[in-house]
């Protein structure tokens, strides 16, 4: 990304809201949670415990998958899952 010059920055150090959503923290990941829809009971424990808000859920309160753009691969979701519906697998499996 081309860095801006001083005349093009907003004054007073301000930054508009939510610009961090452009940051692909998923690049940090070395292990990947893989969600098995058939085992999932949609208890949302993975969703609420994810530090990176990377478990996707819909308006009906159902889990729909993992957002790999942000997921850092910490494994909390797999650990809190009561039904072992999430498996942690090395990223190398997906190259």
């Amino acid at each position, binding site marked *: 990304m081309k860095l801006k010059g001083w005349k093009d920055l907003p004054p007073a150090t301000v930054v508009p809201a939510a*610009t961090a959503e452009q940051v692909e923290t998923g690049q940090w990941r070395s292990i990947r949670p893989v969600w098995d829809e058939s085992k999932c009971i949609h208890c949302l424990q993975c969703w609420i*415990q994810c*530090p990176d808000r990377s478990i996707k859920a819909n308006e009906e309160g159902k889990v729909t998958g993992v*957002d790999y753009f942000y997921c850092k691969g*910490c494994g909390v979701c797999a*650990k809190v899952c009561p039904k072992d519906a999430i498996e942690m697998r090395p990223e190398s499996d997906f190259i």
Partner: protein
Amino acid sequence: MAVRLKDFTTKDTPMTRGHRMCPGCGAPTAVRQGLLAVDKPVVITCATGCLEVSTTIYPYNAWNAPFLHCAFENAGANISGIEAAYVALKKKGKINKDIKFVAFGGDGGTYDIGLQALSGAAERGHDFTYICYNNQAYMNTGAQRSSATPTGASSTTAPAGKKIPGKVQRAKDLTDIMAAHHIPYVAQTTLHNPQDVIEKVKKAIETPGPSFVNILVPCVLFWRIEPAMQRDICKLAADTRIWPIYEVINGEWKLSYKPRSFVPVEEFLKPQGRFRHLFKGDAWKPVVEQLQQEVEEKWAYVLERCKETWEPK
């Protein structure tokens, strides 16, 4: 009334994705759970620390609400100034919304360097909620001891050595100090149960006047645990009673969680690298015993305050 998680799956929260906290860190989880059920718009300030640094790396901003970071020791004063401006501008009719004010600080910015500003803000009675995300050491600068660091923990400025078993002093009881300010709401919790965090912070924010919530959160680097252990280690903190879960509403103490059976404090200590030295040989056995004693003292104190008894299975 218990909150239902499925009611919130599409609700936006003030902290966005794309922040740069460590994988498995407890702090963003605490922020997210805490602010999940809050309906009114919030303005947020944050003491210098991991949460602040990792969410505002210029030109990126992981907040979807107004956010101010100023310095390490003045989150209490900043939230006072914001709230004071709000009250003044509302009186003049320049603002017509109902807004709530939340300050975040780590244990360094809250227990230690920021205690004065927090105490002053609480005494003055501003309408705000201060949330301490307490990982029991200065993590932004690399695991130095704080007054929240428990006895026996090895930190980079109180390392476990041949003669000294890590920190020798007892952790400060900040929640009790804040309760002594006789503010309307004070609570202590951890990430053992999302409902508890969600409800306590919601209650704190909706209570007019000053409120304080102390949330024990794991730091994977300092505690030296697997990132995935976030919830489990917090559950152990609650079950071993090293971190009692309670609230103080208008001076009335209420116990929020009673472990079913007696779990020795070792269970909380053993999975963590920062306490590993305590279990190499018998040399530091007295430290573990001391910790257990501290747990019993505090627990008895909390039970008495809450007018509760405890009969573990």
